[in-house]
């Protein structure tokens, strides 16, 4: 290829990169950019998910030490992921459906 063709091909690749960026970031907006805490609060306030405090009133969670709580979107299903410190000193993970509050099986990814 000549110098000129190479240069044109190079700019074509730049354009392809821009197209990729436009497709990937098309959902860009305040909601998408809000941090995860804000998003979780917005969902809770809208009544789309059960507040964490209500979930923690479940009998098997009462009195447990919660190390970490995350609200995750697993293939369109909102799931609370809790890390608990067991009395044996080990860390356990539990998953709960964030809408109904019912436990979901250990691997929400499947």
């Amino acid at each position, binding site marked *: 290829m000549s110098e000129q063709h*190479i*240069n044109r*091909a*190079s*700019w074509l*690749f*730049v354009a*392809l*990169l821009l197209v*990729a*960026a436009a497709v*990937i*970031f098309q*959902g860009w907006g305040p909601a*998408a*950019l*809000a*941090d*995860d*805490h804000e998003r979780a609060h917005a969902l809770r306030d809208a009544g789309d998910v059960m507040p964490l405090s209500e979930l923690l009133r479940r009998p098997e969670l009462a009195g447990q030490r919660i190390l970490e709580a995350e609200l995750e*979107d*697993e*293939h369109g299903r909102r799931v609370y992921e809790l890390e608990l410190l067991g009395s044996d000193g080990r860390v356990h*993970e539990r998953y709960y459906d964030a809408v109904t509050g019912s436990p979901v099986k250990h*691997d929400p*990814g*499947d």
Partner: protein
Amino acid sequence: MQQQHRRVPVWDPFVRVSHWSLLLASIVVWGSAEEQAWLHEQTGYFILALIGLRVLWGLIGSRHARFSDFLYGPEKTLAYMKRLGAGRPQSYLGHNPAGGWMVVALLCAMLAAGASGVLMGTGDPEFWEDLHEGFANLTLFLVVVHVGGVLLSSLLHEENLIRAMWTGVKMRRDADV
């Protein structure tokens, strides 16, 4: 010939745009890792798309963008490292052998970080998360070595390699090219 220095085009537009876009995206992906899932994941996909295009361009692109231009065998690479150790490395117009392998190492580390990140949504999230963080840390380490190599090379050859990656042009004496 009285002309002392010549401006030689080295890095084509896509090499430069992809290089600096990758730096910017890496900062965004690092900064959004903890609290901004959407931005983190989309930027991760962008990095994977960029790597795909860069690898393709490495096969069909301009002279110094091609892997075949800057991937040297163990002998040449060791010879380069020896002379670098002695403080007088051979000068290359494109990537030197160490820089060439750094390009490959960085692309592989980022590809592995991206792939393990995508796989966090499947199977065993803990396993993929640990791998993802491991490759992200490896990438950061490689970036530090990369920047060190660029600064060292710039000093030893008395040329501004950072500016060359921005403008695409290096200055060469006629005899050098």
